[in-house]
């Protein structure tokens, strides 16, 4: 009965959203904007969500979610346009698509490839939506039994895993980035005793570091500097023929679609890991299991299918920990967290009590967004690809302007700009030196949760850390964190590699 009631609520919310013409206009407008953001090299869905957050300020929470989820879905899909047509990934999420998408376009199959990526992306989003609806009650059931120790460890785990998996260089750099984010979260008056920390007597710092301007600075400013400093030039755009939905290819490769969707959802659920990793993992899996791995990189259609299903499935996956635990699964989801708080929705285990239908509402919006994305992709792709011809020195300054007005308008505080710009410039240097930005952002977001819960937990246990080892979830998290640290030690790393090698050799025999 409960399931039936949930399904009925789902359809009610779906109809309710569709019946409002304003919501439909927001949905299609945001999807289109998202596709443009994704398609333009240098702009990302994270930046799109960040900039639109300011615009949603005056909207209801429902319309704001329609707008932000639509731009997230559209942006993740839009990256494939630039990958397929000019061999420059529009976003990191579509970098794997370029490997086979561009060779296909060179063969004169650009229309077919874009059609396939559109359908695959829509399917990926819909599958992840199904997971959001089905897994959330289970996670919530467990999360309600979590104590402060578990929440502290979850926050700590989020920062550590994000640092470990998103770093382009040494793992230590990912961790440093995460702890720098945690430090930023400590600025301001602490929430338990109201003691001013690192405020230097500046009253504007008393309330702490505003999350959204920090995110806009950390993601927007380095992007602008990088693109214009390195003079990123867009090459010739391949000709786009008739767009074909490619349902036959999808049906023929159904097992691959399911596997890629599962990879996407799974990677999305891991805190701080973005769509790019989902796409690469899926690409690797498709290549390893293919009968013709030699065709990969030369225009293999199943490669495009695998990456596009996975990166869009990551969208729903990233929202699962965000809504149920308050831990964002990807950088755009981190932006969504900031936006949700702005609209008075605090994600976490209490969400079903405070906003009983919110998760189902998000699922309904995801379905609508994927449908809007499919329709827009099929009908407007030829028009949308024209944005690829806009030179970066024209649109990047406008993005810079949007970053500034967007950061300022959240709280109507010029101090936000004084914070956003230095964070942006420091983030640029960090990126140049191989420090990932995602853990920094995750640190800023999860910092207050880690701080409050650690001290609250220790207060309850009278300063004892023992409950961390006696509670099953805590123990599991402690063990994972310890393992994550240990495997970075060369001696342990060698032992692990030797053990794995032995297992593989035995299997080969």
């Amino acid at each position, binding site marked *: 009965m409960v399931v039936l009631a949930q399904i009925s609520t789902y359809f009610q919310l779906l109809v309710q959203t569709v019946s409002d013409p304003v919501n439909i206009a927001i949905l299609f407008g945001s999807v289109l904007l998202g596709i443009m953001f994704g398609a333009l090299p240098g702009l990302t869905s994270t930046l799109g969500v960040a900039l639109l957050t300011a615009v949603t300020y005056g909207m209801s929470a429902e319309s704001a979610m329609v707008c932000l989820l639509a731009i997230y879905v559209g942006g993740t899909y839009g990256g494939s346009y630039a990958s397929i047509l000019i061999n420059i990934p529009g976003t990191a999420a579509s970098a794997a698509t370029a490997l086979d998408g561009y060779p296909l376009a060179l063969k004169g199959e650009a229309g077919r490839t874009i059609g396939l990526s559109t359908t695959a992306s829509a399917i990926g989003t819909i599958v992840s939506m199904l997971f959001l609806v089905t897994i959330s009650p289970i996670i919530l059931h467990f999360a309600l039994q979590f104590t402060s120790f578990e929440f502290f460890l979850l926050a700590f785990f989020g920062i550590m895993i994000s640092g470990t998996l998103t770093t382009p260089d040494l793992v230590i750099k990912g961790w440093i980035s995460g702890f720098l984010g945690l430090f930023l979260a400590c600025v301001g008056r602490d929430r338990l005793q109201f003691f001013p920390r690192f405020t230097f007597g500046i009253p504007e710092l008393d309330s702490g570091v505003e999350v959204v301007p920090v995110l806009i600075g950390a993601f927007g400013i380095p992007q602008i500097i990088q693109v214009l400093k390195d003079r990123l030039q867009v090459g010739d755009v391949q000709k786009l023929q008739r767009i074909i939905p490619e349902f036959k290819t999808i049906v023929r490769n159904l097992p691959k679609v399911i596997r890629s969707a599962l990879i996407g959802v799974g990677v999305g659920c891991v805190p701080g890991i973005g769509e790019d990793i989902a796409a690469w993992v899926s690409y690797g899996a498709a290549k390893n299991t293919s009968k013709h791995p030699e065709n990969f990189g030369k225009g293999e259609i199943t490669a495009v299918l695998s990456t596009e299903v996975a990166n869009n499935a990551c969208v729903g996956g990233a929202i699962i920990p965000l809504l149920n635990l308050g831990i964002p699964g990807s950088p755009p989801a981190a932006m969504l967290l900031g936006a949700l708080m702005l609209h008075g929705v605090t994600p976490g285990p209490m969400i079903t009590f405070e906003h009983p239908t919110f998760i189902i509402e998000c699922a309904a919006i995801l379905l609508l967004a994927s449908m809007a994305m499919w329709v827009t992709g099929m009908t407007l792709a030829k028009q949308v690809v024209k944005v690829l011809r806009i030179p970066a*020195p024209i649109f990047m300054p406008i993005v810079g302007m949007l970053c500034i007005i967007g950061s300022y*308008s959240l709280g109507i505080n010029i101090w936000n700009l004084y914070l956003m710009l230095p964070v942006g410039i420091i983030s640029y240097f960090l990126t140049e030196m191989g420090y990932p930005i995602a853990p920094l952002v995750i640190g800023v977001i999860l910092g207050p949760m880690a701080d409050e819960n650690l001290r609250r937990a220790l207060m309850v246990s009278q300063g004892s850390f023992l409950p961390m080892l006696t509670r099953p979830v805590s123990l599991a998290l402690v063990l994972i964190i310890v393992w994550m640290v240990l495997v970075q030690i060369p001696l342990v790393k060698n032992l692990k590699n030797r053990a794995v090698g032995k297992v593989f050799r035995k299997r080969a025999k």
Partner: protein
Amino acid sequence: MLEKEKMRKADVFSGAVISLFGLWIVSQAVKMPMKDSWGGVMNVWYVSPALLPLSIGIIIALLGLMLCRIGLKTVGLAEFKNTVRWLLSRHLVWFLTLDTTARFYAMAVLFLTLVFLNLPRIDFFLDAVLFLFAFITMFHFYDDALMKKFLLFYLAGEAFFILYFAVGLDTLLNGIHPFATDLVALCFLAGYALYVWTFVRRNTDLRKRYRLALVVSLLAPFIIGPIFKYFLLVPMPKEGLVVAVLDYFWYLEFL
């Protein structure tokens, strides 16, 4: 991102800086109440506001040291000494005058002057037009020599504004005319546009780009600005001459 070998060299320095930063966090955290009373609450170590900052500081300092060690181990002490020698030689000046570095300076100057100097003091729309026009003309011509010339002109103008505000000329002139500062900014904008024009007028391609820059930098603020000002009801950081004119038309004050 840097190449791997350069990255390891940079790691030695960034590791050291991060380590020192971690130590600074620790030094600040130990000043926070650990056992004393704060706001009537007696502290014990585990409820102290210093608990997390102290832990973070120690971890950052240690990770920074580890990074330093990895960098040193990879590049070797001799190579590291060479890098330090390189940094102390004239090569550093050469690096700092590279075209790519100059592009970074240009962007940093444009953003810093906009946020810290212009936005709090000059009408938002004028700031936005100046920022966009300067930004686009510096980068859309794809000519580093021209970019440097434009940057110098822009810097001279901003230096004038620093003096203008520092000596209190704005208070004096705004007393005579309410929008005096905005009019000065408008003059600077016109001066910059004329200065750029002198370099592009004989080149058809550059003239085309100049026109595009002018159109985009005039249109964009007047599309973005009113959305925030009149639809989202966000007051601009500084409302001056242009906002007064827009208000005049928006609220139909002439009727």
